[in-house]
């Protein structure tokens, strides 16, 4: 016999199901009156420092169908690369960059968009610098455990080349699936493909 470790297992994940919006964004779904407003409406407040950008995209399945029930959450650093979080120890983030948002696919078209400030590169305490990125967590009916991916930016070539997370991707040809394409000043396109030849890289971080 050995001493017990007194450790627990993480609660197993279950799909968010088709009605996740009842729980997380009831106002957007048309169930007003329970909460004054939905949480995560915007990752920034008036006065946030940095370049305003809008990223637009959709989530597509292995059959090429666009998901209209996907819910995405985003989490990012401010323009200086600091997180507005009690867990941030490197400095004080811009108080107007909340950093977190809930992004809904349009119930009819499946298009989603995120307006935010472009995040700065994140220098890690243990060394190395992550290129500017926005972490995503994607849930939907049929998704058994939330999918983790990241939006990087195609116009950050040098930073991307030095990013220790991108460097973990063995199949270099898949890296472009994580790069938001610039479509105009402050405008980017980022489609998420759940399955297939152009499948987005998903992480276990």
């Amino acid at each position: 016999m050995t001493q017990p470790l007194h450790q627990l297992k993480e609660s197993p994940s279950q799909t968010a199901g088709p009605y996740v919006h009842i729980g997380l964004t009831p106002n957007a779904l048309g169930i007003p009156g329970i909460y004054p407003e939905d949480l995560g409406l915007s990752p920034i407040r008036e006065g946030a420092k940095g370049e305003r950008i809008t990223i637009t995209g959709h989530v597509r399945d292995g059959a090429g169908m666009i998901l209209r029930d996907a819910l995405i959450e985003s989490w990012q650093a401010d323009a200086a690369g600091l997180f507005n979080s009690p867990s941030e120890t490197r400095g004080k983030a811009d108080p107007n960059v909340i950093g977190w948002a809930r992004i809904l696919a349009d119930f009819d078209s499946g298009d989603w968009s995120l307006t935010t400030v472009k995040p700065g590169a994140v220098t890690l305490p243990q060394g190395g610098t992550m290129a500017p990125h926005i972490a995503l967590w994607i849930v939907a009916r049929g998704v058994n455990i939330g999918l983790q991916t990241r939006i990087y930016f195609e116009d950050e070539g040098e930073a991307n080349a030095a990013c220790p997370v991108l460097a973990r991707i063995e199949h270099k040809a898949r890296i472009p699936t994580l790069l938001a394409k610039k479509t105009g000043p402050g405008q980017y396109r980022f489609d998420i493909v759940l399955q297939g030849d152009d499948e987005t890289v998903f992480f276990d971080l």
Partner: protein
Amino acid sequence: MSDAPLTGPLIGRDRLWHPPAYTPGYKTSVTRAPSRALVAMGSTLSEETGPAFGRDMLGLNDNNLIINFTGQPAIGERIIMHGRVLDENARPVPGVLIEIWHANAGGRYRHKKDGYLAPLDPNFGGCGRTVSNADGAYEFLTIRPGAYPWPNGVNHWRPMHIHISVFGHGFGQRLITQMYFEGDPLIARCPIVNTIPSQAAIDALVAPLDMNASIPMDCLAYKFDIVLRGRRQTFFENRREGM
């Protein structure tokens, strides 16, 4: 302090404990499951940090689904759902945002896509939220949701369940799961439950009846503890190369 630490690397997810992405018994997963291996590495600051949720953001009845929609009571068996949020090192996690949603007592959701013949309850909205306290404890007052049929197979029914979204201190702890009720014979027959590989992991989502927390002549209680990814001890994290 027994509180879970706010900083440090997250313990890696045990992907063999969670449901895999591709589970043909749950048909919608077939085209929505990534087919490539996940790219793995230790957590980074992007997963170790997250927004703060304070109890001050909560409305008075946010965790009372019986009255939070119209102020008039929803129909159904009144229950308390309560428990603690712990991490994998069994430390309580305070400040966790817990959001729940579920069907009404007849098994019907307030959603235009739900055409089940059970009627809507005009006084049941279907969602609630709270933030765990300093001991990691949380509670909801609600009605017990009904089982409902769904078109996955010819005669497939979901067991009574409450959907739960949990947001700890790190974005990498983000989790959605479901709570089931002790003794429900539909649990073992449910294709979504059965996406979970082991009976031990399924059991972790089945809330026991908790008579000690029930209120006489008022409501029954079910206890549901939630476990989030923990953080590794970091005594040796700052060692120099080669030491």
